[in-house]
């Protein structure tokens, strides 16, 4: 109850700052302090969004789908890789260093390569979103699976369940809060990956709009896309934060 009240309060405070910011911004533009090509007035951006609502919606929908597809792949792939790392000494010894090394490559730099390999459709964008997001899932899942309290491990051994049922009934649920924390980060990263993919080559999506608007110095359009992206980021994060609160609710802090 209390937590909900305080998060509602935080939301209110954030909204107030946002409204004040937009108001000041509007004043600065109206006063003619900056050229519209540098910083368009918020009212112009709203008008643009309103007039072209259907078009923006379909572009945003495309970006959202790519993001979710990349995220879904990252969740499945990341959890599977993490499970393999934790349960196999061999895998840990030979693949973990490789994964760490791979993680240190700036994934954005791989984007052009994926376009060469996979063309200009959705696939390279999903792959980039996946690549950027998957490490967050791997790292937090490994951490969660390794932090299962020793008593629970002993309990599992004494009860002599099958390794699979022990994993599903004890280890995985025990690691869940950590996994969800990883997902929260991964979802934001998947959105970044999608936009990067759309920058590199695309005829669709918010990243594409931003790139093409840049070519014609259409700052209003850039800001319209950015505001949708910001909203999308906040909503996606909010959904996972809600999931996280559901998962953690009713759990005593583990050690």
């Amino acid at each position, binding site marked *: 109850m209390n937590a909900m009240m305080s998060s509602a309060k935080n939301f209110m405070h954030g909204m107030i700052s946002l409204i004040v910011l937009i108001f000041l911004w509007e004043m600065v533009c109206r006063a003619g302090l900056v050229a519209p090509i540098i910083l368009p007035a918020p009212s112009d951006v709203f008008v643009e969004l309103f007039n072209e609502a259907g078009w923006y919606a379909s572009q945003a929908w495309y970006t959202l789908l790519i993001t979710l597809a990349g995220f879904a792949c990252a969740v499945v792939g990341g959890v599977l890789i993490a499970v393999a790392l934790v349960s196999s000494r061999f895998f840990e010894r030979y693949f973990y260093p490789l994964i760490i090394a791979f993680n240190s490559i700036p994934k954005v730099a791989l984007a052009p390569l994926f376009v060469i390999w996979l063309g200009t459709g959705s696939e390279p964008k999903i792959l980039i979103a996946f690549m950027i997001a998957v490490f967050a899932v791997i790292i937090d899942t490994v951490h969660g699976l390794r932090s299962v309290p020793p*008593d629970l491990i002993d*309990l599992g051994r*004494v009860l002599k369940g099958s390794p699979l049922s022990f994993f599903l009934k004890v280890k995985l649920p025990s690691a869940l809060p950590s996994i969800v924390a990883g997902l929260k980060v991964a979802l934001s990263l998947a959105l970044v990956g999608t936009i990067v993919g759309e920058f590199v080559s695309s005829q669709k999506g918010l990243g594409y709009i931003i790139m093409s608007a840049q070519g014609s110095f259409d700052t209003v359009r850039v800001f319209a896309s950015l505001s949708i992206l910001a909203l999308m980021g906040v909503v996606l994060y909010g959904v996972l934060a809600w999931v996280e609160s559901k998962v953690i609710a*009713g*759990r005593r802090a583990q050690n």
Partner: protein
Amino acid sequence: MNAAGVVAESISKRYGGTRQTQALQDVSVSIQPGQFVSILGPSGCGKSTFLRCVAGLERITDGSLRVGKDPVAGPPDNIGMVFQRDALLEWRTIRNNILLPIEFAGKSRENYQHRVDALLRLTGLSGFADSYPHELSGGMRQRASICRALVDDPRLLLMDEPFGALDALTRDQMNVEMQRIWMETRNTTLFVTHGIAEAIFLGDVVLVFCPRPGRIVEAIPIEFPRPRPLEIRESPEFGRLVTHIRGLFEGMEH
């Protein structure tokens, strides 16, 4: 009734590595089926190591150790274990926590619902079957974990300082409850503790361990009739036992 004895014949446990530590040396003891045995000692005396060896969680390096007729190699079948921190699964209700051993044994949960209800009644948790662990106090949580250990009628109940994390008053109350539960179920019970009064109050026998190397210095039979009331701790006889054991501990410090 389904109770196993435990026989240890000069078992030893060394931890390897560069600095070898002798966790247990030449421990011999014979525990009868249905006995309540308190295992008492200061920290580092090997009492928990002994329990973990019986549970098959640690391998002995020498000697022979049997639960029932079988030598211990890995956890024996059908034993119950209670940990210092209850080790309940936070995401399961109390009922589902208690049914965990049944699920792991591949048995039908339905057949054990009555058993769970009976155990909850026995431990005074009847109204809490559908609560989650975080809704219970420390003492209630530990009672729930005792129910979990008892649900499949174990041949052997192993308890590793189960009341060590509880406050003194709750602990007294748990001692009384533990005696009542044991008198009802008569499981062979190994109860590790560092509380002298608790060990005497509950045990048919108190095995006094001492450290460096971990070994049994004395096995003291406790003759008080049951059920023992808490006030028994004020009796001169009880006082003499406490003094005697304290003397054993003082003799250990060199």
